[in-house]
């Protein structure tokens, strides 16, 4: 057992109503499992903001574990998390 801090950016904050939250993790829990648990915790409003509703797959966005950047579409979502990790969920906005 351990704990990670999950930080939300952009509209994921708007959807969750918070900038960050602590999540308990199993030893060596995979990043993808954490994302699935976050979807369970925050519901469809959160899910619709990271998954394409038509295809049901994760939209492209960056996830940072510490300073390491992991792509939601071609990065290693089986990355094993450790106690004390800070996981940042950026968001899939184009434009600017």
């Amino acid at each position, binding site marked *: 057992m351990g704990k990670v801090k999950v*930080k939300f*950016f*952009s*509209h994921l*904050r*708007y*959807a969750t109503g918070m900038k960050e939250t602590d999540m308990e993790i199993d030893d060596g829990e995979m990043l993808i499992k954490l994302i699935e648990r976050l979807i369970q915790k925050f519901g469809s409003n959160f899910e*619709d*903001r*990271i*998954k*394409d*509703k*038509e*295809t049901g797959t994760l*939209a*492209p*966005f*960056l*996830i*940072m574990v510490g*300073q390491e*950047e*992991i*792509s*939601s*579409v*071609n*990065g290693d979502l089986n990355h094993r998390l450790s106690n004390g990790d800070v996981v*940042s969920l*950026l*968001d*899939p*906005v*184009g*434009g*600017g």
Partner: protein
Amino acid sequence: MWEYGGYAGKFLRLDMTNKKASTVPLTKEMARLHLGGNGFGAKILYNELKPGIDPLGPENKYVFASGPIQGTMVPTAGRSGVFTKSPLNGLFFDAYGGGSFGPEMKYAGWDAVIVEGQAESPTYVTVYDDKVEFKDASHLWGKYTFETQEIIKKDLNEPKAQIACIGPAGEKLVRFACTIWGARAAGRGGNGAVLGSKKLKALVIRGTNDVEVPNVDEFLKTVSEQYAKILANPGTGKALPSLGTPGVTTVQNQLGILGTRNWQTEVFEGTEKISGTAMRERLVVKDKGCMACPIYCTKLVHVKSGPYAGTIDEGPEYETIFAFGSNCGVDSLEMIAKADRLSDDIGVDTISAGAVISFAMECYEKGILSKEEVDGLDLKFGNQEALIQMMHKFGTREGVGDLLAEGAARAAKKIGKGSEKYAITIKDIENAGHSPRGMKGYCLGMATSTRGGSHQDGRPTGERVGKFDRKILDGKPEYAMGTQRTTTLQDSMCVCRMTEGIYGLTEVTNDHLNMINVVTGMNLKLPELVDITDRIWNVERSFNCREGARREHDVQAIRFMTEPIPDGPSKGMYSPKDELEMLKDKYYELRGWDKTTGIPTKDTLKRLSLNKQAEDLYK
């Protein structure tokens, strides 16, 4: 319906010198080879401008152009473009704005309006379908853009008219003045100064004609599918409707690629205060969409307290938050909203205005500009009051405003004393709010693009959302060319950049193709469409080469090639010259351009049926 669906089938030519209007028929060949928008603008200017002319002289021309989709309900069809030889760098420049202006032009029966010559006194032009009148605008000269539009609508009793106009900055030939319609701006490249030089204060358009597509049922099927895709996509269906582009601010900072204090660093300690969420909570009063847009990324804001109370503004967008916020060291959204509203009213591009001020701030802090030289202002980073005073000077050209109204690159040349390296410009265009140092593909895409410091040809999105690894060089020449192809195509259709993730970030797709075919009935094939985008890109490139642009101009700002990002998550990243040159070799090869000169090869031009360009460049 004209030969193809979507088009009106003719261009309007406005001769400002003789106050005469004439019609130019659109040919089927022009539509099939150059598509619209960007394609039309590039083709018209290449054919009609002599090389070497003064952008602010009577020989320059200014083209408003729409694509085949304007006037229809293809999502984001509210957009349209303006094209001219830029007063900032003397090269081809295209800028786009949303709202309803482009569609109204189409309903009036025009695919493009070509403005040429120079009037003797302030003039505005009204276009009611095919009825054109040149009118005296002396009572409008000097007026802000919002007031100008209100006066015209009232005078003409035409609440539905769409009005493109310039503010005091355009009149005073500020080199980064823009064109405003509604509260939208065709922002970049200084096109407002070109209208100012022609003394055209406003172009008023009202149209009552039909726009048609060949098969309504097929059209509705394709549009419904795309509409559903837009709503299902987290970016366009959720993020942009909630926060608009300002949502990106915290993401940029978290990656360490948020331009700060004139790009001295790329992390900003005040980011939380200027974030999209902060804006939504404190200032947003209404969501707004451009015509035919389901994404509604525009946020109407109202500042209710503090020194900027009473400011009502459409926007600010992310770019503006970067330009007046982090890059000027300011952490007040209220001041940013005020500066944004002033930009629209005075008629300047927010990105360049912010960049010019941040340039002056760095010069001031480094002792290159004295307090006397900046009219007694304490022009330190973060000084909000001084920033707002500088904005007003762009509308009057008073004091230091006159020097800075020339743009950062020209101002630096006048100031000297090593200030050139603080002018963060690419091809003399001030850099937009994305990091060439922190994204390798974007860096190359920008350096090789016609527009230089704009973020609209090299694109940051693919790298920022992690579809492509922003830190590696592998595959980046392909990425740069791919993004440029999609931007060229989007700008020629013309659809908004917010749909790039729907149509395809780095390649011409069947989604682009189907939409164009269902609107026009042209029955194009995918390879033909790729050729169209490459043709348009090479017309632009040929325009610039004819003006003397070469391989050595495809570079980044000095700071980006010499100073690594000093701290934050992207610490150490930069774009050394030799690395950029190596990427350029490969890129030119992909493009079919001569590696020594950077000019498209004769074979490339001929393959794209650009025989005139081949003759001009290989005399």
